[in-house]
C-alpha cells in the first residue's frame, strides 16, 4: 500500500516510465491503482526515432507489471516522509507476521 499512496501524491506531476522492453514514455501522471497500473496524459515516447510506431500515442494506460523504472522529479518527493512511512510499514508488516 506504501507505493500506491506514494504514487497518488505524484498525480499531476511529469514522470518518465521506463518499460521492461526499453521503451521510455514521458507524460503527466493522471491516475494510479493498487497494481501500480498508471494512466498518463500528454504522453510521448522519449526516443521517438527509435519507436516510430508509438509517436501517435497521447493518453495511455500502462500495465504495472511491464514497468521497470519510474524516473521521478526529486522536487516532488519528500524523502524524510517517505523513509518514515517505510519504517512504519516495515514495523506493521513485522507485527502482522507474528
Amino acid at each position, binding site marked *: 500500500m*506504501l*507505493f500506491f499512496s*506514494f504514487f497518488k501524491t505524484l498525480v499531476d506531476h511529469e514522470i518518465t516510465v521506463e518499460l*521492461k522492453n526499453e521503451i521510455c514514455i514521458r507524460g503527466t501522471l493522471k491516475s494510479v491503482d493498487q497494481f*501500480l497500473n498508471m494512466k498518463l496524459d500528454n504522453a510521448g515516447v522519449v526516443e521517438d526515432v527509435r519507436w516510430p510506431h508509438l509517436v501517435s500515442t497521447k493518453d495511455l494506460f500502462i500495465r*504495472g*507489471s511491464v*514497468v*521497470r*523504472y*519510474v*524516473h*521521478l*522529479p*526529486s522536487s516532488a*518527493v519528500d*524523502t524524510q516522509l*517517505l*523513509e518514515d*512511512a*517505510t*519504517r512504519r*510499514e*516495515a514495523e506493521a*508488516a*513485522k507485527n502482522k*507476521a*507474528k
Partner: protein
Amino acid sequence: MADVEVGVATEVPEPLELVRLCVDEVVIVKLRGDRELKGRLHAYDSHLNLVLGDVEETIYIVDDEDEDVESVRTIKKQSEMLFVRGDSVVLVSPTR
C-alpha cells in the same frame, strides 16, 4: 514425526530486516537483465519495490561478435530519483 520446537524462532530476524537497516543508506541493487543500481534507499516494501535517490545505473553489455574475444561494455546513466519495480530486483546489498 519429529518434535517441533515452538517459540524458539520468534527472535530470528526476517531477511527484510537487512533491507530495513539500509533505509537512508547507499545500497547496491542488482537487477534482471544485467543491470546494477547504486543509490540512497528511501523506500521499499515486501515486493522489493524501491525508491532510490541520486542513482547511478550500470548496464553490462557483452559483445561476442568473435567466438573467443568476449568484451563487456558498460553504459552508465544517472537519475535523481528512481522508482524500481520489485519484480526486476535480484539482490539488495549495503555498501559498507
